[in-house]
């Protein structure tokens, strides 16, 4: 469960977040949809306490991120963009490292690591160094890192960017499976297709504000449009910065 309330953040002269409020519930996939520069990344960074909001709060499973960052962050897994792999480590070492930094003891980390490698079917590459990996292999490694410690909430920043069809499917299947397990999944995207295909909830962002939140169907209904794409354009008044 991720809740964001009244979040404002000014970066330089730009009001990056403007009284942003939304919530992403457990057992749901929530998409943060908005054009480039809408404040999606700023919002996610604030969620991880990397940025300090001027106003409002963000809570992870009810824990205020700013007041108790370490505890709040334990409930989060991040699939970053870009991935930030360590090229000289193997996926197993990489995943194990993040598992341990997320608070797992050594042996538990190894077990969790093995489990996630199985789950993502990456045993063939698990012990090779990351240098020279394909985009799909990199994606799997980054994904494994994000979920190895089984966080209740998984945050993905532009997850499908640059992925091929197979990798996108793998990712999609995994997200659906995680949702089925009751995890809260929040991802930012500017790709309409992806959002409409996956999301139970969509938060439409523009100029730092949440313009609307609801299921794709609700949003269509509310804007009296047939497709999410049309609904979106009607909500923000333009299709600039959005990919179909």
């Amino acid at each position, binding site marked *: 469960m991720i809740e964001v309330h009244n979040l404002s953040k000014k*970066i*330089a002269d730009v009001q990056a977040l403007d009284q942003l409020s939304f919530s992403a519930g457990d057992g749901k996939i929530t998409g943060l949809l908005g054009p480039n520069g809408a404040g999606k990344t700023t919002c996610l*960074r604030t969620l*991880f306490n*990397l*940025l*300090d909001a001027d106003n409002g709060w963000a809570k992870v499973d009810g824990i205020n991120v700013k007041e108790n*960052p*370490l*505890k*709040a*962050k*334990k409930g*989060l897994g*991040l699939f*970053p963009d*870009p*991935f*930030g*792999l*360590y*090229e*000289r*480590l193997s996926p197993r*070492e990489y995943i194990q*490292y*993040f598992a*341990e*930094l*997320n*608070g797992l*003891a*050594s042996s538990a980390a190894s077990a969790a690591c093995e489990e996630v490698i199985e789950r993502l079917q990456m045993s063939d590459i698990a012990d090779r*160094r990351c240098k020279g990996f394909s985009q799909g292999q990199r994606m799997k490694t980054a994904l494994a890192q994000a979920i190895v410690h089984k966080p209740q909430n998984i945050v993905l920043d532009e997850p499908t960017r640059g992925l091929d069809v197979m990798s996108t499917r793998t990712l999609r299947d995994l997200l659906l499976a995680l949702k089925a397990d009751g995890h809260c999944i929040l991802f930012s995207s500017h790709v309409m297709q992806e959002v409409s295909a996956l999301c139970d909830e969509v938060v439409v962002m523009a100029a730092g504000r949440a313009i609307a939140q609801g299921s794709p169907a609700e949003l269509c209904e509310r804007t009296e449009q047939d497709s999410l794409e049309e609904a979106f354009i009607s909500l923000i008044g333009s299709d600039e910065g959005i990919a179909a």
Partner: protein
Amino acid sequence: MTAWIKIYKKEMKDAIRDRRSVMAALSYSIGTPLIMCILFIAMIDKFSSPSALYLTIENPQQAPELMRHLQSKDIFSKDALPEGKSTKAITLTIDDGYLYAMQHGELATLTITADFSNDNLRSSIRRLQRELRSFSREVAALRLIARGVSPEVIRVLDVQAKDTAKPEAKGGFIIGVAIFMMIYAVFISGMNLAIDTSAGERERNSLALMLSLPIRVSDLVLGKLLAVSSFALFGLCMILLVSKIAYAYVPWQELGANVIIDGRFALYMLLFSFPLALLAASMQLFVSFMAKTFKEAQSYLTIVLILPMGMAMVTGYDIGPDMLRWLPVSGQQKALMEVVKGNVLPWDSLLMATAITLLLTGALVAALMKLLSSEKTVFSL
């Protein structure tokens, strides 16, 4: 296990696999003593007078006794030059009136013609002058005896010298340079890792990811700091080891010096340099965290490293003000020079220098943590 240990372990594993970091640590530590060795050996060869000295002697028939004396001291005319030996460009001209003057107790004139500024000749010229003086003294003593006077009469002063330098202290300059090279290893060896783990981390986009984890910034800084310090100390160990082996081949005696790297010295070196390794690591991390890319960090550090280099160099050559012994780098170096010279350790200045080193390190670590908590730095806003 605490997070900083895990971070330290990962950083070390990562760094050891990084050929560039390892090479950076090793190349200086292995290369420098070897280069110094070659340099010193070349210097000795260039500056010392050959065992048999051949030079041009004009008019030798005027001075047979002097020729006998010079020959007994291995100084020969080039007429007797054996194959494979070379002549020094020094000419000793014996005045036409030499024999007459010698027989009558008058001043006998000799002229040495040579380029006195030539390093290759200097020691040979000095040797020739020394032997001429000793011949002159010998004849003078015998002339006095022949006149019924003891030569002791003209010695006048018996000046006894007591050199307070310990036998180990001979050649302080060379010792200073050798120690300076070793201390500098602390700054060089960890540098590549410092950049890789900071600016490199940022360049690889893993910095924000690291900061998103439920770990304290202090754990992150500590882990990285210790990894860089370990490399610095590893470089120091290597340079000590290589120096110990390589310096054994330098005939230091010829330079009147004695660079002994023994267990005691190595121990003091590691002990005194430990705080310096921390200081070097924190300084390098701080500077390179401010840079956005590897290249940028490299150029910043090159400039920043001039400071410790300058301090070590000024101390090594002993041209700095006395105040330097209270400061980091120069303070430890000064203390190590005293160790080598066998003198009493200057505990007051060493402790002060160490305290300042640790204080500076603390300040830099605090600044580093602040830096990493600042959104401006992390995202270069």
